[in-house]
């Protein structure tokens, strides 16, 4: 009869259900009939949640120069249910808008498909970001337009025309942002690019809210629960960037009329001292109501000024890459600093030829870097990939090589604190197995040893290579933001990342790069009194060669590491070296000497002719 006993439990369960419903009905009774409080609350009082916008954090450069700040602006809000007897013409005239704009805007607000949170009884955004002058006209007459309110906001102002790509801009949130993050409402502003986007959470602060009571006619009756539910807005945090404004300004001057990028890093900290991407634009174009129009204009420009080439451009690193090769060969024991390789007009192997310019032969490592000998590095790679005692197959050797490149910061995103970084390209054995169906060897891929072929890197990665050499074997992930107010930096921006090559081996590379300045390919970059080390790069591509340069200075205890990349600039010495040297001089001395100033002017005005085809 156990089953019968259990069947009785239906009464327990039924009683539970009855108990729950009974409890609810009693509760309903007490809420709806016993107590008048709630009814009164609802009848006479409705709530108005007034949002208090925090001021966005300001942005300064490493020396405290103001870059981005806020200035007041006004939004015009409308409550549809309160709009009555509006003199539309007068209203439009006051705001300087057309009747068509007014009609379109009103129907847009009412369109629930576009304006998801629409309600007739709450404030809806009518027009955003009026300047104080525009607003004062409206404010005088505001009493004539019932249902229209104003809300003070702040807009971003840029102190200078520089560093547009780094600073980025803010704009109205997209419907997707609103959907993904409860914090945002239609009409809110959000960082769209650059630092503004990467540090949105820190910069935006925390919105406050005032819960106000109002009566049936919409009149404000004070704070609900004596303001117990109100929250004060918390201002956004200020940011200090690692950028040096003067250096950035010079970089942008020098890159006028050219395509490319200059990136400088402080080796000891990984802070980015300048990040120039040319062509650039004036960030002040991206403020206020003109943003949409200007943004469209820039995005249609075939030279792609919106692209931050420093982190999004992927270029063959050319001969600047040879430094990384020498380090790999030294660490793997393929060469010693005194190892000699022949070069008679290039790398010759069973009919395969990769050319080089005329210089003494055979030569050891240091002069090979100084004169940028192609053959030396081809032979290095050839012997490394062909060493069957050390590596069981060319695939193993290839992947070993890949590991070194990755440890030096190539092939993957470095993790800079800007959105949109690209990873560049470092091929691995599988890549070539697929491309050549397994039939390949060191000679097939030898051009990667001189930074050509399948290899590509962003200017930031190339600058980072210079930083690892300056540091003799490690780097700190490059980052734009030096300091966040009351908040530590992410630990990846304080930790050293070692390349896996002994610091001992770096000294030969440094000597080679110093030699390049004194008597090699970088002679034009010599500045008296400063021990600059440098390496040119001339990257072949479909059109005119790209001109590249990496360098750092001073040789001991380096303060700045730099990469210059000028698209179709010709030889490394044509643009890369002089531009790099000017930048280093500016940073180390704080100014340019009169001769250098003259030189800077020459390069500023020397423009490269690019076609208008899409690139």
């Amino acid at each position, binding site marked *: 009869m*156990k089953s019968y006993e*259990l*069947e009785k*439990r*239906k009464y*327990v*369960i*039924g009683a*539970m*259900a*009855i108990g*729950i*419903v009974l*409890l*609810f*009905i009693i*509760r*309903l*009774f007490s*809420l*709806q*009939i016993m*107590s008048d*409080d*709630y*009814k009164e*609350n*609802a*009848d006479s009082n*409705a*709530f108005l949640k007034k949002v208090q916008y925090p001021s966005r954090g300001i942005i300064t450069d490493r020396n405290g120069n103001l870059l981005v700040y806020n200035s007041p602006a006004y939004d015009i809000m409308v409550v*549809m*249910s309160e709009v009555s007897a509006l003199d539309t013409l007068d209203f439009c005239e006051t705001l300087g808008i057309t009747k068509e704009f007014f009609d379109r805007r009103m129907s847009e607000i*009412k369109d*629930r*498909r576009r304006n998801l*949170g*629409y*309600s*007739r*009884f*709450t404030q809806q955004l009518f027009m955003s970001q009026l300047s104080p002058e525009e607003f004062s006209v409206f404010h005088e007459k505001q009493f004539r337009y019932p249902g229209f309110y104003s809300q003070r906001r702040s807009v971003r102002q840029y102190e200078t025309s520089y560093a547009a790509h780094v600073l980025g801009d803010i704009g109205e949130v997209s419907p997707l942002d609103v*959907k*993904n993050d*409860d914090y945002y409402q239609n009409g809110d502003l959000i960082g769209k690019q650059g630092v503004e986007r990467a540090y949105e959470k820190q910069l935006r602060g925390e919105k406050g809210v005032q*819960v106000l009571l109002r009566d049936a006619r919409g009149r404000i009756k004070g704070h609900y*629960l004596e303001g*117990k*539910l109100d*929250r004060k807005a918390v201002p956004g945090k200020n940011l200090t960037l690692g950028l040096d404004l003067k250096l950035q300004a010079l970089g942008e001057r020098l890159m006028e009329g050219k395509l490319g990028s200059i990136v400088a890093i402080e080796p000891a900290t990984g802070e980015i001292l300048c990040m120039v991407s040319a062509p650039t634009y004036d960030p002040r174009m991206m403020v206020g109501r003109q943003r949409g129009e200007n943004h469209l204009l820039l995005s249609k420009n075939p030279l792609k000024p919106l692209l931050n080439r420093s982190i999004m451009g992927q270029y063959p690193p050319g001969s600047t890459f040879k430094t990384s090769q020498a380090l790999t060969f030294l660490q793997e024991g393929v060469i010693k600093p005194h190892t000699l390789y022949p070069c008679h007009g290039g790398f010759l192997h069973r009919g395969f030829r990769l050319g080089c310019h005329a210089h003494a032969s055979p030569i050891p490592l240091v002069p090979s870097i100084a004169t940028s000998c192609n053959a030396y590095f081809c032979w290095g790679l050839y012997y490394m990939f062909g060493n069957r005692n050390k590596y069981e197959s060319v695939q193993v050797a290839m992947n070993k090589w890949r590991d070194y490149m990755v440890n030096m910061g190539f092939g993957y995103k470095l993790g800079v604190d800007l959105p949109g970084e690209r990873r560049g390209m470092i091929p691995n054995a599988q890549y070539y197995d697929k491309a050549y169906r397994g039939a390949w060897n060191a000679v097939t891929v030898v051009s990667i040893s001189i930074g050509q072929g399948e290899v590509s890197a962003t200017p930031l990665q190339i600058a980072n290579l210079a930083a690892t050499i300056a540091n003799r074997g490690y780097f700190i992930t490059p980052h734009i933001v030096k300091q966040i107010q009351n908040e530590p930096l992410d630990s990846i921006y304080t930790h050293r990342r070692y390349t896996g090559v002994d610091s001992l081996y770096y000294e030969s590379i440094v000597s080679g790069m110093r030699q390049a300045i004194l008597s090699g390919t970088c002679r034009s970059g010599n500045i008296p009194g400063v021990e600059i080390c440098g390496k040119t790069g001339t990257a072949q591509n479909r059109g005119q060669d790209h001109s590249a340069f990496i360098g750092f200075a001073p040789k001991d205890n380096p303060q700045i590491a730099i990469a210059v990349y000028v698209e179709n600039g010709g030889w490394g010495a044509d643009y890369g070296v002089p531009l790099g040297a000017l930048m280093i001089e500016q940073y180390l001395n704080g100014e340019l000497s009169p001769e250098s100033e003259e030189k800077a002017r020459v390069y500023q005005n020397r423009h490269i002719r690019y076609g208008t085809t899409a690139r």
Partner: protein
Amino acid sequence: MERLQGRKGEGVWKSLDWWTILIYVALLAFGWISICGASYDFELAGNIFSFDSRSGMQLVWIGTSFVLGFVLLMLDDRIYDTFAYIIYGIFLILLFITPFFARDIKGSLSWIKIGSFSIQFAEFAKCATALALAKYMSVYGYSMSRMREALMTCAIIFVPIILIILQKETGSALVYLAFFLVLYREGMPGSILFAGISAVTYFVVGVRYADVPMWHIPMSVGQFIVLLLIFLFTLGLLRVYCGKTDKALKLITIYGIGSIVITFCFAYWVIPFDVTWVLLVLSLFIVGYLCYLALRDRVTNYFYIAMFTLVSLSFSYAVEPVLNEVLQPHQRVRIHVLLGLEDDPSGAGYNVNQAKIAIGSGGLMGKGFLNGTQTKLKYVPEQDTDFIFCTVGEEEGFWGASLVLLLFLALILRLIYLAERQPYAFGRIYGYAVMSVFLFHLFINVGMVLGLTPVIGIPLPFFSYGGSSLWGFTLLLFIFLRIDAARNLSKRY
């Protein structure tokens, strides 16, 4: 062959439980009216049938639900018994892969987009779990008292719970706990259910009201209520298991209640101090006394009750440190969100308060269809999904809201009746599972709107807007109706 099918179809319509269908249709009708009220816009007056509005879309969901119900009734009832495990397995896989394909919608990874529709498998997995549970427990010779089978039963319930928690849908996951009511009906000792409910109560009350002071007395309301509950539960257990005339019961009742009242009054009027210490000492004293009695009179029940009290005490005191020390901050936040502490930093319950105002403003008769103002002004959050009952309260008033609750009660009681008349354990267990899910949803959802239970975002069956949940509930109900309709065809071949 054709004639046979014809007869079978006839049989279904004849033995179908039309009462349940009637309640189902009535609830859907009420639900649709509420959706109209909640999403109605004065601008779009007269356009409640437009597919742009939520009320119009809900009509589509209701229509498709009818089709779904019809199809389910036409299918053979034995497929559920036969394929229960396969259906369950498929849904486990779907639940497992969902987070990998889901789009992040406000932190939840449970929605899969198929074409232009988003679908939430968690809503359908309830049905699959109920089927699997019914199948497993209806096997001949099944007994919950065997460890292996008890563990398997728990596993069937907890695997989907874990998978749904991984989708960050803790609320939906908790629904599966309702199946323990089924286990209770099928022979799980009542003390386990009681212990479980007590533990949840201690936890919810203790954490929810931990930081609320009791007037001017320096103690936490949560702790006080929990200790008082432990004391009362102990008394209740003594009464049930040791008889009304038990001497210890009388003694503890008189001295216990006496001392609590006296110290409380003392703290209230004379010197405010933390009364919880008195309760703690009192409870410990009771534990000691019961242990002494157990040894003296050789009555093991005393000992078990003492253990219950002791475990309850340790549990209630362990909750806070575990929450603050052991759990990771994000886990703590999730629990706080579940209890409605996080959304609501002021602690005054803005959302729930808004809901209460909306309901309270309905009065006896309500404001009438589409005349509610509180819900329409969007003061109530999630007003057409989780907080839909506000609209019922505001527009239909006390009568309407009570009627809706009674309809739900009728549905639940009817389901119990139907479940009990099943000739096979499979049908009965599945029926109880369906009933439990409805009861749990009703309890949590309406309780939340009325400010009685924690704010856990689960829908009110047939009322909350959305296709996934409506289809899920229809599926659950109509499978059972189909099984029930076949109860007389007892000659199985």
